[in-house]
């Protein structure tokens, strides 16, 4: 499964990049996120409750960030397990382009899923993933813009 999209965020690139590394903002933006902790500069652990069609699961996962080309580019890989509901692994490449005071965020994400999620959700999974991604970035943009406005 591959997803890509772009959104415009009313904040400078540095702010957007910093927000992408901020567990508090991430927690707010990730749909169903119950817990997120940074275990190192590049490692995060998260607990997320998700529902895909008839499958409901609580995923616990690990995410590794690769900031070597920051702030223009930024990539992450991760994997999560939802017990009997299945598992997911994948990654995303994020590009941050400066456009005046604003930032254009482009992302390409790839994911493989397994278990019940893949079986029951195969018809729904791409749609659900798109919806989740859209929801994440909308909330993320709102959180960043709100923080920017307050600053």
């Amino acid at each position, binding site marked *: 499964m591959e997803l890509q999209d772009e959104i415009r965020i009313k904040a400078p690139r540095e702010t957007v990049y910093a927000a992408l590394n901020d567990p508090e903002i991430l927690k707010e933006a990730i749909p169903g996120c119950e817990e997120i902790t940074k275990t190192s500069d590049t490692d995060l652990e998260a607990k997320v409750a998700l529902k895909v069609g008839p499958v409901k699961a609580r995923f616990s996962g690990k995410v590794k960030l690769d900031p070597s080309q920051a702030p223009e580019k930024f990539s992450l890989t991760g994997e999560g397990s939802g*017990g009997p509901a299945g598992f997911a692994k994948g990654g995303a490449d994020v590009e941050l382009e400066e456009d005046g005071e604003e930032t254009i965020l482009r992302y390409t994400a790839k994911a493989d899923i*397994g278990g019940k999620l893949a079986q029951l959700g195969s*018809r729904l999974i791409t749609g659900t993933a798109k919806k989740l991604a859209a929801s994440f970035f909308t909330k993320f943009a709102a959180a960043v813009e709100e923080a920017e406005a307050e600053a």
Partner: protein
Amino acid sequence: MNDMTPEDRKSALKGMGTSRKRVEDARFTQGKGNYVDDIKLPGMLFGDFVRSPYAHARVTSVRKDTAMALPGVIAVLTAEDLAPLGLHWMPTLAGDKQMVLADGKVLYQGQEVAFVVAENRYIAADAVELVEVEYEELPVVTNPFKAMDADAPTLREDIAGKMDGAHGPRKHNNHIFTWEQGDKEATESVLSGADVVAEEMIYYHRTHPCPLETCGSVASMDKVNGKLTLYGTFQAPHAVRTVASLISGIAEHNIRVISPDIGGGFGNKVGVYPGYVCSIVASIVTGKPVKWVEDRMDNLMTTAFARDYHMHGKISATTDGKITGLWCHTTADHGGFDACADPTKFPAGFMNICTGSYDIPVAYLAVDGVYTNKAPGGVAYRCSFRVTEASYFIERMMDILAIKLDMDPVELRMKNFVRKDQFPYQSALGWEYDSGDYHTAMDKALKAVGYDNLRKEQAEKLAAFKAGESRSLMGIGTAFFTEIVGAGPVKNCDILGLGMFDSCEIRIHPTGSAIARLGTISQGQGHATTFAQILASEIGIPADDITLEEGDTDTAPYGLGTYGSRSTPVAGAATAMAGRKIRAKAQMIAAYLLEVHDDDVEFDIDRFVVKGAPERFKTMKEIAFAAYNQAIPGIEPGLEAVSYYDPPNMTYPFGAYICVMDVDVDTGVADIRSVYALDDCGTRINPMIIEGQVHGGLTEALAIAMGQEIAYDEMGNVKTGTLMDFFIPTAWETPNYITDHTTTPSPHHPIGAKGVGESPNVGGVSMFSNAVHDAFRPFGLTQSHMPHDHWRIWKTANQLGLHG
């Protein structure tokens, strides 16, 4: 009764040849069936499995405490708990062994990892979610050819390096067996010097029997008297009792296996599954009855797939279409364990029936069984062992050869049929076909459908398509199959060492009614109806006065069960033979009552009459009463008989099937216009039930050919694990069927019957698939893989350049 004409007396019996209504249907249509899930015992607990989401992984830990803390959870069993009892692994029907619960690793998605036992089903399902299992992913192999690569990961570490398998030497850690039949050298020499050779890879995809009722069991261990009662969806209850005794150590007389009503089997309920074993262990551990019933996903993902044969074929002929040789190498994908349900000496079943209905002088077959990260099984889904695969192979090869020879596929078949005067016919791959009259059957079919006119119409439709006036192509699918059923002669047919005879025991009651018990078990075939009809004709007691019982090992005589269309050929023969023993004793009683010599009375429909004086007779009713209540010198009281029948040969039903479809090249929709099915199953016991069997078998064939499959992605995810994705035809997709017959009795069967339940699936799949191929024949298509769903048909049209 005495003033009835012989015809009246005969029809009152409702014997063989009568379309007697099914006696089972009164309870089924009123919701009064009694299936495994209807069984409710006091204090019964419920089991459910924790299953692996991974297709190949190490199981590094299983944590039960959170699940055990849930109120209502009684136990969580893992391989570690079963190991001390030696039950963490179990033998398969194919001489391999299979994990009951994951022992260190999992080999396919859905594999059983832990068994949760709880007070009710809901708690069990909740607790399954709470068992924490840690996995370490391993590389997944779902392609059997890649499984045989030198650097492929070893799937079965338990037998790594053990190169001596249950069916001879293994040549790779993921290899199971090589099975060879026929004359390799002679076949290859014929092929290399042949005028014409057609070569193709025919893939018969993985599918699943998917019966309406899934598999399940209820085990009840009575610790006071040491008796285990096991209810379950078993197509072979007696074999299950023996196997359960061998693996559990419980003496066989202390195990009672009961198959209640079964909601369809189609091969799915032949195997032994971890659920059965776990319900038994859980009942022994808890001292309470334990029920386990699969849900639909469990069923499709884990218990008993069918087919998955990659068949590489070569067929040679003279330029005028006389076949000279056949060669086949099959790669058989058996999944993680070899759990095929085949007679021991036939690891690829009766795949060596692949010379079909044709007189092929020389042939060679080799089958390589291979392990992959898929579910185990390999059952005979509404067919005798691997016969659909064999039949599909030869019927596709015939059509492909016809293309190569630029011949009509029917003409090619007619030219090569085994002739009537060649029976009994010895095939190049080792079978002795008992009887057949193929040319008569095919002629009748061609006349019935107006074959020549159909071909003319097809040519007109093709011209219209080429002229741009139409976007649809007409396909005519022809298949002529020979089945091999009725396994089987004990000299070469056994499963786990159990000879494949079958049995019938009859007791005539003093008032002239009767009970008959058989070693088989109906799953919808209507045994209670048809076997009573055999007896009615054999012993002159009305079928309505005969109760038929099967499936309780404490009462029924031992038999190997119902699958592979074996009930009529084997248990049906036993029924007739037991009936004849009854009749022999009845003759002596009648002679005594009539005060004549035994040889001076003869059987006449429902009575014994004095030869030459038909007004002097004793009815079977009178004889039955006398058998119990009159002291007859030299004859012990009672009227009972039992017969164990070991068939001298298999039976070979055959048929000619023709269908017509219109394929829309733009949508990929195949509109099936007509289906004609002529079956020759020898003597016909109940024409209505035969017709019903043919309708059902054709519908399953339609499903398999046109849409049904168990598909995996590269990670080993089952992509078709629900009925949203796994095609089951409804009345909407099912076409109208025309059935017909010829009758060529089996010469070695007591009543000449051959078995029919599976024939329509064997012939039907080839027929539907051949029709799709036939539609595209003018555009150069030789082979496209089933199932022919809309997407695949569209893709074929696209690849042939028909979308402009």
